[in-house]
């Protein structure tokens, strides 16, 4: 069930996978090929016989660490940042403001070290690891979504959709959910690249400090041993994984951005 002037008409659900598929096809040369090249290179030049299999499973571990952290961190950070623009003095707004301002204080590798310290003290590794990687993504999302939400609710050109929705008599909850929030979240997904980089570097640090069998730990162990044949394929594969995560973020932006659901042609998306 959708509202008559909702930004997401019912057929949007049917169109949802299309940008994802398009972005994934675009990402083949930059994401899938490097990962395949890294695994192939590992099979060819690495000294261990099962190096390619280890790298493949290591990539899966790194993806399992980074993807949920990025998804949850970005979603929560975008909501908190948006709420900071709507109600800056509420609890959610204060959290959003803190996250938006604290980004540089909390890099992924430093939080990974905090998580490692906590694990040495007896805490559980998995939730702490995911939290450590999710916080930088949340900070980045809050930093981008807060000004975007302020623009969406403001008196400028970008607030036109919200003003029109209010003028047509929609209640405030619907206006925020269907008109303002997509405008606030779209720049977050477009700017996901920095969060992806922070998450990948943080995941490498986390894997190495906690001895997790990820691609990052494989790369660092090989580099410690002075083995270029072991570390370079892992680095190439990690670059591909980074490109894949970035492409997923762009696909999500294409799906969320209200400009892509407009009935009028728009070149800015």
């Amino acid at each position, binding site marked *: 069930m959708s509202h008559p002037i909702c930004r997401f008409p019912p057929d949007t659900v049917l169109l949802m996978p299309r940008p994802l598929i398009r972005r994934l096809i675009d990402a083949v040369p*930059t994401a899938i090929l490097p990962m395949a090249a890294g695994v192939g290179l590992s099979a060819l030049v690495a000294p261990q016989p099962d190096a390619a299999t280890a790298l493949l499973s290591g990539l899966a571990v790194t993806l399992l660490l980074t993807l949920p952290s990025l998804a949850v961190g970005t979603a929560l950070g975008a909501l908190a940042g948006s709420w900071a623009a709507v109600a800056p003095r509420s609890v959610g707004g204060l959290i959003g403001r803190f996250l938006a301002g604290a*980004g*540089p*204080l*909390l*890099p992924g*590798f*430093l939080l990974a*070290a*905090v998580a*490692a*310290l906590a694990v*040495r*003290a007896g805490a559980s590794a998995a939730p702490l690891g995911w939290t450590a990687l999710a916080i930088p993504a949340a900070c980045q999302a809050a930093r981008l979504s807060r000004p975007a939400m302020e623009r969406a609710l403001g008196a400028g050109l970008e607030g036109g959709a919200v003003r029109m929705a209010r003028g047509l008599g929609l209640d405030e909850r619907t206006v925020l959910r269907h008109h303002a929030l997509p405008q606030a979240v779209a720049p977050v997904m477009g700017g996901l*690249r920095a969060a992806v*980089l922070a998450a*990948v*570097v943080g995941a*490498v*640090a986390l894997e*190495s*400090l906690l001895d997790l069998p990820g691609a*990052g730990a494989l*790369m*660092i162990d*090989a*580099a*410690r*041993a*002075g083995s*270029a044949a072991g*570390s*370079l394929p892992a*680095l190439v594969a*990690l*670059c591909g994984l*980074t*490109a894949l995560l*970035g492409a997923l973020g762009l696909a999500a932006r294409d799906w969320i951005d209200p400009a892509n659901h407009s009935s009028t042609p728009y070149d800015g998306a």
Partner: protein
Amino acid sequence: MAELDQPPPSHPVLSHPVPPRAGFARGLSGAAVLVALALASAAAPLMADGAAIQRLDADPVAAALLDGRGSLSFALLAAVLGGALGIGWALLAWLLGKLSDARAERRTIAAAHRLAGLPLALLVPLTGGLAGGLVGEVGPLAVVTALTAAPAVAALAHAELSALLRAEFLTAARAAGLTEGEVLRRHLIPNASRPLLAAGTLALPRVLAAESAASLLGLGLPPALGSWGASVGLAARLGDPVAFVPPALLLALALWATCAIADAAVAGNRRP
């Protein structure tokens, strides 16, 4: 006719109070914090009762301050290198566009954009590990660290340069009969230097983060130099929270300060 007597846009006369620039206070705070950290790190040996410079492992705060000398001086060296490389990259792209065609310029900058999206910071621990024989040699590590920051600086510097080259006062100067050399000397270089330097400051937080991450993994600066990242990594492996907190706190402060400086420098050049 008063509108015809306006000063040239490249040299505006400000008759009204200038509004505060975006992020200026934050940048000033960042600079103050960074200077305080540098001074405290420089004065750290005095905490050893005036004795000779040595690692003060008994006192985590003094040890963290001593580590700051290695981290901050290396970050400064690598940031200067990275900023220069990035600005040179942007100028090379512009020159290629002037001398050959726009496609060469686009390709050069597209390469910078693509590289800026890759986890280049991982090259630093990789180099630190593979160049095991060069332990004690900071030069190669500084060059690699600088290379990790250069693409982002190049992308921003090229964007600033492109915006400047589209400015109306350059068209007006050419229309007034100035030669390309005069336009370059009198308008382009004075107006381009500030945004290019601002783009160069973007290298500072990046190289500090890259070096700290590499040192945290034990593959960064040599132990003799000291580094916040190395101390944080060692304390995390040993599970020692007392030794962990001071270097982690100082590293986080330094990262915030360098980010604030870079953000303020970049935002200060944007015209409303």
